[in-house]
């Protein structure tokens, strides 16, 4: 019992305090690739601290939804952190959720953020919400179907089960379906987290922003929470990418040594993904908004192919 509580806490702490670091590393790598010096990798922590200490300004026209949303978004992310196998496949709440539950948790956050964007009645919030929802509607099915491509071969939709199966039989991963699912999932991970080429997290340029437009009305600790939650979402998506597709190092039991190895393995894998994202964001230009559906439809097709090939190619 005590170890389970300890693992729950450890997993929460890794996601909570790892996510700003991940964001910082991506920003730093991007800056270096673009020939800038960039802020230190611990800058996001300082940003969050600064925002937490700042005064809260809330428009008089908003309803309870606007004040409630930051807490809800942060809570759904923390809940997801308990379901995603971050360090170990014996996740505390792993029994209560598979990829479908996880997807709905993410979607619940997106839904309330979109409502909050509309709540203040500003033009930007509404525009951001409508764009974010359009992209989410196209991206969410791809996430689930890409994971189904894996689930079909592993014989289970539970995230823990998929990792256990692949860790036991690495040959299952040497498969076209695995590659296709990975490509599809990587593209939607970029889209879901508002990275290039779908959305640019670094600008507040009125015509191009999506996520940033939606949360424009937030300030102080509410903004801190929304940004922290966005960081955690990115962290969780990259964790899913690294642990589901490359299950090496994930602890299969709850021995301290295995957990420590898992932490090291996770850090290495996330570092590689951070570098990959920085590379993509440096090399690729932002897509025109009306071409984003083409990209997402493409990734959806790839995900669908990943499922179909499981029947064709052994």
């Amino acid at each position: 019992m005590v170890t389970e509580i300890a693992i729950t806490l450890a997993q929460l702490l890794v996601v909570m305090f790892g996510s700003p670091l991940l964001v910082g590393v991506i920003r730093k790598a991007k800056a270096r690739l673009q020939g800038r010096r960039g802020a230190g990798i611990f800058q996001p922590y300082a940003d969050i601290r600064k925002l937490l200490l700042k005064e809260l300004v809330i428009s008089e026209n908003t309803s309870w939804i606007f004040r409630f949303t930051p807490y809800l978004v942060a809570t759904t992310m923390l809940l997801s952190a308990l379901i995603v196998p971050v360090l170990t496949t014996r996740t505390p709440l792993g029994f209560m959720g598979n990829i479908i539950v996880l997807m709905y948790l993410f979607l619940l956050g997106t839904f309330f953020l979109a409502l909050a964007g509309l709540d203040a009645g500003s033009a930007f919030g509404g525009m951001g919400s409508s764009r974010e929802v359009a992209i989410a509607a196209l991206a969410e099915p791809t996430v689930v179907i890409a994971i189904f491509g894996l689930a079909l071969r592993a014989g289970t939709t539970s995230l823990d089960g998929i990792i256990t199966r692949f860790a036991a039989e690495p040959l299952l991963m040497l498969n076209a379906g695995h590659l296709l699912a990975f490509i599809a999932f990587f593209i939607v991970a970029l889209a879901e987290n508002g990275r290039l080429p779908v959305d640019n997290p670094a600008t507040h340029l009125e015509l191009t922003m999506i996520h940033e437009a939606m949360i424009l009305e937030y300030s102080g600790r509410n903004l801190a929470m929304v940004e922290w939650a966005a960081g955690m979402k990115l962290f969780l998506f990259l964790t899913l990418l690294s642990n589901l597709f490359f299950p090496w190092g994930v602890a299969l039991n709850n021995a301290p040594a295995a957990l420590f190895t898992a932490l090291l393995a996770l850090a290495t894998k996330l570092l590689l993904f951070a570098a990959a994202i920085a590379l993509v964001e440096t090399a690729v230009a932002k897509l025109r908004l009306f071409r984003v559906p083409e990209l997402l439809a493409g990734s959806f097709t790839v995900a669908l192919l990943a499922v179909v090939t499981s029947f064709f190619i052994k």
Partner: protein
Amino acid sequence: MSEEVLSKAVNLLSFVALGLNFLLIVRTRLEGQVRAFEWQSYVLALLSMLIALYSGSVELFGVGVALVVVKGVVIPRVLNRAVANLGLLRVAVPYLGTAPALIICGLLTIVAFYVMTPIAASNPLPTADAIPLAFAGVLIGFFIMVNRRRAVTQILGFLMLENGIFLFALLATYGVPFIVEMGVFLDVLVAVLIMEVFVYRIKDNFDSIDVGELEKLKE
């Protein structure tokens, strides 16, 4: 390396090679198309080296190295030179647009599976499972050749077709003898060089590399 690992790896790499065929159709710029062919050649070289490692055949390893040199380095260079000389004509103009072309290639893949699965099943080699993928590559190479209006992309279609045939032979029999393979490489290289000259001539004579122009009578 066990038989199962080889079988899986070959399946995956053949699939990547086929995926690059599709990428060539999606890409609209000629540079991107040449790069798709270049990557496909590297994938095939990797495949042949993998099979060489498994079967212990030195000749096949040599074929892999020659593949990198001829189709991975020399031919893409020649093609890029041709593309650079074309100036504004650098966009491929197919008869059919991207979406219908993709659908046709999907159908061709299904046809390949339908025709080749029994043949693959009768082949005892561990690489035989991927034969339908190689055959799909051949069919799509043909399709690219007839679908493209511009001479350079027709060359690319021809090269993809040739890659498909090479892959097919590799999977079905661990490759044809070294001397034959070298002869084929040389033929392909010379063919590409000659076609490059043709492209220039067509461009000089018609101010276009649209092969449709060739059907018109001139005074």
